[in-house]
């Protein structure tokens, strides 16, 4: 069975420019198309418009939190194929468990290594070829 990674659409929801810049660069190096927004309201609109394959979601940001965006995606039957990767600086030990319980597919706590991000992106966007 071979794994093939074609170009995917990735929505980056991150309010901090520095980290957003770095993440965008890393993901585009993987050959994917990245669209970045900086708050929850813009994220809601972008999801409806672009229907991304993967959403990288910060939790603490202006407007609806990453948890809310995650819950909305999972409640929308038309978005069931969307993968969600939570990125957060929260040190709460329950953050991972909460994220996964709300429907996230992956969780990374900041600060994280670039390799970790790239690994999670690859894992979540891998397509199985017959």
């Amino acid at each position, binding site marked *: 069975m071979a794994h093939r990674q074609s170009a995917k659409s990735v929505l980056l929801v991150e309010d901090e420019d520095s980290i957003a810049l770095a993440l965008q660069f890393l993901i585009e190096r993987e050959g994917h198309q990245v669209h970045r927004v900086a708050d929850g309201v813009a994220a809601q609109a972008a999801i409806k418009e672009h229907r991304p394959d993967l959403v990288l979601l910060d939790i603490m940001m202006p407007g*609806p*939190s990453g*948890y*809310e965006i*995650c*819950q909305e995606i999972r409640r929308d039957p038309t978005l069931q194929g969307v993968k969600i990767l939570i990125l957060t600086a929260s*040190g*709460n*030990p*329950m*953050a991972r*468990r*909460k994220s996964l*319980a*709300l429907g996230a597919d992956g969780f990374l*706590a900041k*600060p*994280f*290594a670039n390799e970790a991000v790239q690994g999670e992106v690859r894992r979540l966007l891998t397509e199985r070829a017959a």
Partner: protein
Amino acid sequence: MSSSVEPTDGAPSPMQDRMQGGGAPDWNGETPSWTRLSLRLRMFLFFALIVAGGIAVIVAAAVYAGSRLDPSAVATTKAQSAVLLTAIVAAFGLLALTTWVWLMFDENVAKPVMALASELRARAHSKIERDLDAEDARYLGDLAPAAVAIAKGLSDSQSALEEAAARERERIAQERARLEEVVRDVPVGCLLCSEAHRIVLFNQQAVDLLDTIGEVGLSRDLFSLLHEGPVLAAIDWLKRSRGNDPAEFLCTTRGGERMFQARLRLCPGPAAVNGGEGYVLTLNDVTYELADHAGREMLLRDVFDQIRRPAANISSTVAALGLPETADPKRRQALQAAVVGEVKALATAITTLGQRYETRAATWWPMAEISTDGILAAVRARCVAEEIPLIASADPFTLRCDGFALARLLGDLAQRLTASGERQKITLSALRDTDSDGALFVLSWDGEGVQIGELEAWLDTPLSGGYSGLTLRDALRSHGTDLWPEEIGDDRPRLVLPVRSPGEAEAKADAPFDRRLESGARTHFYDFGLFTPMSGDTDIPLDRLEYVVFDSETTGLLPYDGDEIVQLAGVRIVNNRLLGDDRFDLLVDPGRPIPASATAIHGICEDQIRGAPTPAETTERFVRFCGDAALIAHNARFDLAFLNRYCATMGQDWQPVVLDTVLMSAILFGQSAEHSLDALAERFGVTFPEATRHTALGDALVTGDVALKMLAMLRGRGVERLSDYEREAQRHQAFLARGSTG
């Protein structure tokens, strides 16, 4: 020593006893003083005097009459005979009359008066319920009714006094019981110590704080538990300052395992002149608080250390990257690598410090061991009061948390869930959470789910119940947890709240072989009689000694020929009280097979002692338990043979004072009496469950009971001090050497 047959002062002599019983008077050969004679005897002598006087008068009259007769007349002889006859008849007549009168007087006056006096005397010294029978005193005129009235008045007064005393005793007992409950539940360790630093009173908190350090009990040495330096310094300061304020200081346990914030106040003993000056010591365990504070300080220091340096390096390196000289690719590459390295170090430090902070974040919040049952009961009660329909159920287990905050949090959530009217049949359950090794609180309901945004807004509202503005989110953070909604398939929507159990309380060693009383508060936790200091350690009164009554069960009767102990138990006697719950009770692994014949007696088999302490280890612990108490045993020579052998192998020099209940029995009842423990128990009416006989603890308790009774009897026989006992022991040495009874 006086015989019980010989009369003692105040008791009637046999002569007096016979007089009072109606027998003939008697003399003991001495001339009695008139006032010491009994009433009947005096009355008898009075009437005898009358008879004697009358007869003397008659004789004198007859002699006079005879002297007046003409001795030359022929009729004189006849007249003399007539006078003599008349005198004799008169004398006998007088004697008979006087005797009859005396008998009547004796029967109807003297005896009733003495009987009345005896009755009144008896009622003056003891309460007699029956009415005074004055029938026999009916000839005493007003004396009988007066005596009846006095007796009734005395009886009524005695009854009233007894009732008043009983009421007062009841009141005092109730107040004491309340005080005992208060003292037990004082949230800090509380100790009252004598001037000699012996524990006179302790509460359960003190036991909880110090029981893992050493023995906490009446008459124990405080400084076997705490380091003496700070305590002595505080006492010295208070004595010099003579102020009323207490001294506050830090002190540690003997080995430094725990630190306490201590508060000491001097207090006089119950009888300040003789009782000596003791002190009250309260202890608040600050071990974890200080450790927690130190940990926080260390964390803060590490934050500055581990972040400042990389941040400074990054700043310098990035600034250098902007210089024209760094256009050189190699130099630029090196600087970039340096930046990357410092960033990685910074990221690692932040991750590590963040984990340390999260771990520590929960420790400042007041936590306690609380049952999930208790938390749900509090939520249930609030929901009933506020008419929030809720059903609560729990797997009952203990959790270390702020139960009050969690109960308020869950109650607040239940209130908000029902506020919209769109959610019904709310259920709250508490389950074990395998992921966090704590609890999982789950609120579920029928109706619409909860949006995470709505929930996050709830969490930012203040926690009800007087938490000073702290929010629901603060309560979650304090427990290092979070809360979220779940909607899985067709299941009811729910809110999930995992609660870890941080900082597990240290568990006490579960020693199945240690059968000391572990649950429940001690019933004997004060004895103000211990306040009175001993006058010195020479010639100690027996009732002032502290004792450990002990017994052992063994593999056989040959302590020097292969037999070993399989059980050792002891109970403490302090101030003439047997403290049944201050005990030592251990099974022992003898390191050899237990014969079936021995098991048949004490019921201990090899399965029970597998893994139990060795005889030497047990002896070491027992010696620590005894401290400097004297020992009492039934046939102490036998049990001590084992203990002395074990002490010798450990190189321990242990020379306690030892009393033997077999010897006490020989002193009191004679060597030929039965001295077995069963015989002593029967003699003193000491009962015990048959199943406890021939168990070390059961036999120790019986021995303690009979020992207390015999010690009291010995005091009555003049054996009051240790030196008296030792003298008696010397006299009965041969008897003891002849062998054991038990």
